[in-house]
Every structure is written in structure tokens, then in C-alpha cells.
């Protein structure tokens, strides 16, 4: 818990199958307290208001209990004192390629991941340098006056815009983990799109050089000014090996009048990660915010993308695919808060539980009594593949006002034996038939992802299915 400034030391530490060289230059040490915050602020040269913001958040984090009265008791396994809350570039742990498990290598092979990327994803290299891809995006973006930088840079170079919206969509005290993020955030993107600009190229965090972007406590803030349009993508289908077991990101989106933001996430963290994310968008008049979310990895993911429809005719949408295999719990959902007339929201969630995996849907739809002409449609479907597979659905719908309506449908089923038989009669072996059926189940949602992702997603689902068809 003290900030260490020893000279470079080569320490052979094994943590599971991990070995790494550590230089202690930028390491806040284990555990979290005010001095950790001071350390972070000093290293990043944060302005005073951020230092205060972080400290307030730390107090809130410490005061709030774990939400185990409704969430998974597995949360109790997180040992907060045993986590490093700030690790800068040079101190990312490395792995030797030989130590990478065979299944991981096989996945890379099947998904057709280029050699260079494999090493980064497997944790063999601390950063992935795709200068060319990144500079293409930067050029396209620079021409249109779009700002696309890391959160630290955004904070320093564009304080007027940053400060106006930072922490406004998701207040620090929203939940214990947004408080944690607000205390120790680092990395993530800051994006501002000027009025009327429609960004043609989807922006991706993946190709940024700064390795901090895959840090544990990313903070992303995206502002689309009036009439602008933007698609942002984060994550990738290939499994990303992580040593850090706690990921607690916060993403805030602001869509001004008539703006459109589409935020696409594919999450495939390794099976030891707790992925607890708070994501919310604020949609002004006639604006649209759409979350497209795919959760395949991690030990426990808790994520409920939300949209607050603040202006007339605003629209919120959440499209979610979750795949839970052995030892995994995908606890996802959506929150739609209607706060203006004629707002509409749509939630489509499809989950697949394999082996002993568990998928849970939690939803919240709120429409106030003073509003008129609001509509919500929710559809959640769960597919169970094996005997021990589990699924739960817990929506909460509070719709008032007699000119509003909402419809919620949920179903749970397994792949129809008739369907499998039909496919087998055409010569398709059972395992392939199951994969086809599962891909068919999520097909209409997979179509909503950009093409590169949708192809990879299908392959990934096939891979996951292979293990479970027995």
C-alpha cells in the first residue's frame, strides 16, 4: 500500500503460469487509499478538480456495500486489497509464447488472427502497434474536425467540453463500481464529433497504440453534437488474456439534438475476469443511441447498457448477445428511462447457455405518467444447450400514462430436436447442425454488427459449441 520507488529488479514471480519482469517506476502498489489517488494524479498531472473528483469517488466507493442482495454472490470473491489500481505502460506483465495454452492458440488459428495480433492478445506483448490502421482512422477523422484521443488527453486538452459532460450521464455514486472507476480511471477514449459531421469510418479503440486502453478502469466519454453521426467499436472476438481480474469501465454517451451514436462492444475476456461495466447514454431531442453488445468471455459480466431519453422523439436501443459456458455467468440487460414525449425504446436480448453456464437478463423500463406517446418493446430469448445450463430473466417494467404502451416477451427453449433431425437428414452431422441452429438463433442480431465482427462471431460461436455438444 505504499508507493514503491525501488530501482529496477528482476523478480521471477509465478502467478499461475505467469512470469514477468517488473520495473517499479509507475506502480501504485496493491490496494486502494487516498495516497493511491494522489499517486495517480501526480503521475498523470491531473488538474485539481479531477483530484477532488477522484477522492470524492473513493469515499463513495468505500461507503457502498456490494449489491449482493440482488447480484451474484460471486462478487464477494473479489479481493479489493489485492488489486493494483494503476499500472502504466512499461509495467504490463508479459508472458512467453510457450506458456500460452493450446486452446488459446487454436482459437487464434480458427479465427484467422494475424501473427502479430496473437502475441498481443495472448499477453506476450504489452502493446500492439498497428500504426497504419490507426493513422488511417486519424486522417479520416482529423479532416472532419473530430476529436479522438485518450481520456487523459481529452481532459487536459479539451477541458471545456470534457468537464461539461464528464460524470453527468453516470454520476459517481450510481453504483459501487462506477464509484471505483471514478476514483481510479485511466485510459479509454474521449471523442467529440462537431455538428453535422457524419463519421464514415467506424472508430475503434483496438488499434490505438496506447496499451492503457485495455486497462482495468477505462473511462470513455463520447459527445456527438447536433446532427452528427458516429459508430464506435471496442473489443474483439479473439480471447484476450488478462492478468487483472477486475475490469470496471464506465462509458458515457451524449447525443445532442438529432445526433446518432452506435456503440459496439465485443467482449471476450479470459475466464478469470470480473467484468463490471456501467454504460449509459443521454439522448436529446430526436437523437438515437444504440448499444450493440456481445458478451462471450469473462467469469462474471455485469452490464446493463442504458439510455435516458431526455428529448422529444429520442430513441434508445439495446441489442445484446450473450454466450455463457462452463464457469461463466453473463448477467446483462438494459435500462430504458423515458423522460420525454414520443420517445421509443427497443431491447432485444438473446442468450445461449452451454455446459453449466448461466445467463441472466435484468431489465428496467420506466415511463413517467406525465408523458405521452412513448413505446417500449422488449424481447428476450434464451437458448439452453446442455442439462446443467441455466438462465434467468428479471425484468422490471413501470409504465404509467394512458398514452404510453409497452410490450415484453421472453422465452426459454432448447434447440428443437425436430430441427436437428431435419438438418441431419440432409447429411449435416449433429454437432454442425447444433452450431447452425445456434447461429440461426442469433443471426438477426449478428447481422447488426459490422461485417468483420459478424464473420468472426459466427466462427467463435461454432468453436464454443464444439466443446459442448455431447
Amino acid at each position, binding site marked *: 500500500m505504499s508507493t514503491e520507488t525501488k530501482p529496477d529488479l528482476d523478480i521471477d514471480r509465478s502467478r499461475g503460469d505467469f512470469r514477468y519482469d517488473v520495473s517499479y517506476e509507475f506502480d501504485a502498489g496493491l490496494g486502494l487509499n487516498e495516497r493511491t489517488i494522489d499517486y495517480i494524479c501526480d503521475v498523470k498531472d491531473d488538474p485539481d478538480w479531477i483530484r477532488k473528483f477522484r477522492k470524492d469517488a473513493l469515499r463513495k466507493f468505500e461507503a457502498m456495500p456490494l449489491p449482493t442482495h440482488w447480484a451474484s454472490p460471486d462478487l464477494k470473491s473479489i479481493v479489493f486489497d489485492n488489486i493494483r489500481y494503476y499500472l502504466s505502460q512499461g509495467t504490463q506483465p508479459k508472458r512467453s509464447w510457450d506458456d500460452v495454452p493450446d486452446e488459446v492458440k487454436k482459437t487464434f488459428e480458427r479465427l484467422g488472427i494475424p501473427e502479430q495480433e496473437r502475441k498481443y492478445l495472448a499477453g506476450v506483448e504489452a502493446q500492439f502497434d498497428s500504426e497504419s490502421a490507426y493513422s488511417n482512422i486519424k486522417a479520416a477523422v482529423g479532416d472532419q474536425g473530430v476529436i479522438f484521443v485518450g481520456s487523459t488527453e481529452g481532459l487536459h486538452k479539451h477541458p471545456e467540453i470534457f468537464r461539461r459532460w464528464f460524470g453527468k450521464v453516470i454520476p459517481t455514486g450510481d453504483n459501487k463500481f462506477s464509484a471505483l472507476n471514478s476514483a481510479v480511471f485511466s485510459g479509454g477514449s474521449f471523442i467529440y464529433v462537431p455538428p453535422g459531421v457524419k463519421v464514415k469510418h467506424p472508430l475503434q479503440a483496438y488499434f490505438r497504440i496506447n496499451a492503457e486502453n485495455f486497462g482495468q478502469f477505462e473511462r470513455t466519454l463520447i459527445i456527438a453534437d447536433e446532427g452528427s453521426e458516429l459508430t464506435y467499436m471496442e473489443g474483439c472476438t479473439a480471447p484476450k488474456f488478462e492478468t487483472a481480474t477486475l475490469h470496471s469501465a464506465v462509458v458515457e454517451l451524449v447525443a445532442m439534438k438529432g445526433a446518432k451514436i452506435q456503440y459496439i462492444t465485443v467482449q471476450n475476456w479470459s475466464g478469470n475476469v470480473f467484468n463490471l461495466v456501467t454504460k449509459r447514454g443521454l439522448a436529446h431531442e430526436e437523437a438515437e443511441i444504440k448499444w450493440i453488445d456481445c458478451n462471450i468471455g469473462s467469469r462474471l459480466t455485469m452490464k446493463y447498457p442504458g439510455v435516458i431519453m431526455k428529448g422529444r422523439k429520442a430513441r434508445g436501443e439495446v441489442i445484446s448477445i450473450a454466450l455463457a459456458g462452463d464457469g461463466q455467468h453473463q448477467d446483462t440487460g438494459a435500462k430504458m428511462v423515458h423522460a420525454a414525449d414520443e420517445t421509443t425504446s427497443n431491447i432485444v436480448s438473446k442468450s445461449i447457455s452451454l455446459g453449466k453456464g448461466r445467463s441472466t437478463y435484468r431489465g428496467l423500463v420506466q415511463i413517467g405518467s406525465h408523458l405521452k406517446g412513448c413505446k417500449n418493446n422488449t424481447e428476450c430469448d434464451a437458448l439452453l444447450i446442455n442439462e446443467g445450463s441455466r438462465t434467468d430473466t428479471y425484468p422490471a417494467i413501470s409504465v404509467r400514462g394512458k398514452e404510453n404502451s409497452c410490450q415484453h416477451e421472453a422465452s426459454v427453449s432448447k434447440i*428443437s*430436436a*425436430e*430441427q436437428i*433431425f*431435419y*438438418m*441431419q*437428414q*440432409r*447429411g*449435416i*452431422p*449433429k454437432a*454442425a*447442425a447444433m452450431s*447452425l*441452429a445456434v*447461429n*440461426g*438463433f*442469433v*443471426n*438477426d442480431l449478428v447481422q447488426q454488427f459490422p461485417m468483420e465482427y459478424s464473420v468472426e462471431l459466427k466462427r467463435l460461436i461454432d468453436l464454443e459449441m464444439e466443446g459442448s455438444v455431447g
Partner: protein
Amino acid sequence: MSLKIENLHANIGDREILRGLNLEIPQGEVHAIMGKNGSGKSTLAKVMAGHPDYEVTGGSVTLDGQPLFEMAEPDDRARAGLFVAFQYPMEVPGVTIANFIRAARQARLSESEDLDAVEYYGELYAKMDELKIPRNFTSRAVNEGFSGGEKKRCEILQLAMLEPKYAVLDETDSGLDIDALKIVSDGVNALRSPARGFLVITHYQRLLNYIVPDVVHVMVDGRIVISGEKDLALKLEAEGYDWVEKGLLA
């Protein structure tokens, strides 16, 4: 070389439906089975295909000498050369016709071989044109929202693309109007060959005007009771099944 069924007994749950059925369809011939509802016609098709609801309690089926029931999985039998066009084809949501047939074709190739996409689509479109299935159906999910006629044509398209040794058509004519019937029959007739056998299962004689059989069999209570030439079908149409049943009791 034939599809030979010997003394086949099969149950669904506790009920015996097939009670010692014997039938042989030589390569190159078209045989028809006619029978009342409940005679077990569809059961025969499903039992051969390996439908999980049915249990074979006796007898055997060989396909060109290969014992069918020793192939445990329906896809093994399919790859051995058996095709069944179902009476009520299943919907497979989210799986397009193009991908479905492609997966079926790919399953017949060895591990290292890959289907040539250009060749595949060329063939697929040609056959769709012949069956008057609009080309944009390739991206529709199999049978989802299809009319009865569209479903049957989709079955025949699959038959055309998979080129089986023996094809069993289970009441392919049910729910079809004259135009659809002609198209489907033309499709089937185009696939007749000395290397292929057909078993056409039907309730009505009308289909057999278009797909003219070499032999007609009558099924009563899970057994073949009479076999004859194509005018047997006409006699059934004119006189019904009573005379057959009376003959059995005599």
C-alpha cells in the same frame, strides 16, 4: 442395387404402426405407396430417416446392401444416399437456404476439401430457376414464413442439390395447387435416372399422373397388402380403399 425393406416393425410410444412391412425399390425405378390416413405412410419415411420419436422393433432396411439401421445418426444415413422430402418441413430460423444447402454439401466432402463458392452458387441458381423459386430466397431462412407450396419446392431444391441415391417423397403433393404440382413434378422427373430410386408416398392419385410410377403399392395398417401397375392407383381413386380391406378379410 436397391432400397430394400424387410419385415419392418416400428412403434411410436406404445403403439405399433409398422407391422411387418416389405418393399423393394430397385435403382432406376419409381414406386408409389398409397394408403388411407393412419395407415403408417409417413411413419415409414421417418423411420427410415431415423426420426428420434420412433422405435424400430424388428426387421431391416438396406440401401444398396448397406444396413441402414446400423447407421445410428440420421446424417450418416443421409450421406449414405437417402433423402426424405418431409410432409411438414421444419422451419430453421436464422439459417438461410444458401447456407443450409451449402453446409449439407460441405458435409459430404472430406475434411480438406472446400466447396467452390462460384460453382456452388451457379448450380444453386440454375436449379432455383428451374423450380421457379425466386433467387432472393437464398437469403431467406429455411421455410420460415413460407407457404405450403414454397416449402415443398424448397424440399425439391434440396433434393436436386444433394443428388441422393434414393429419395422418399412424403405427401409432396399435399397443399399444392395445379401449377405448383406441375413445377414440383417437373423437378422430380428431371431427377429420374437409372442410378436413382424414388418412393413417392401419396394419398391422392392425382400426383401420379405427373410422376408416373413403375409400381404402385397399397398400404393398410402398417403393411403393404397389394402391389400392381399404375392403373392400381386409378382403381383406388374410382373405388376407394374398401375393396382392398374387404379382400384382406376374405
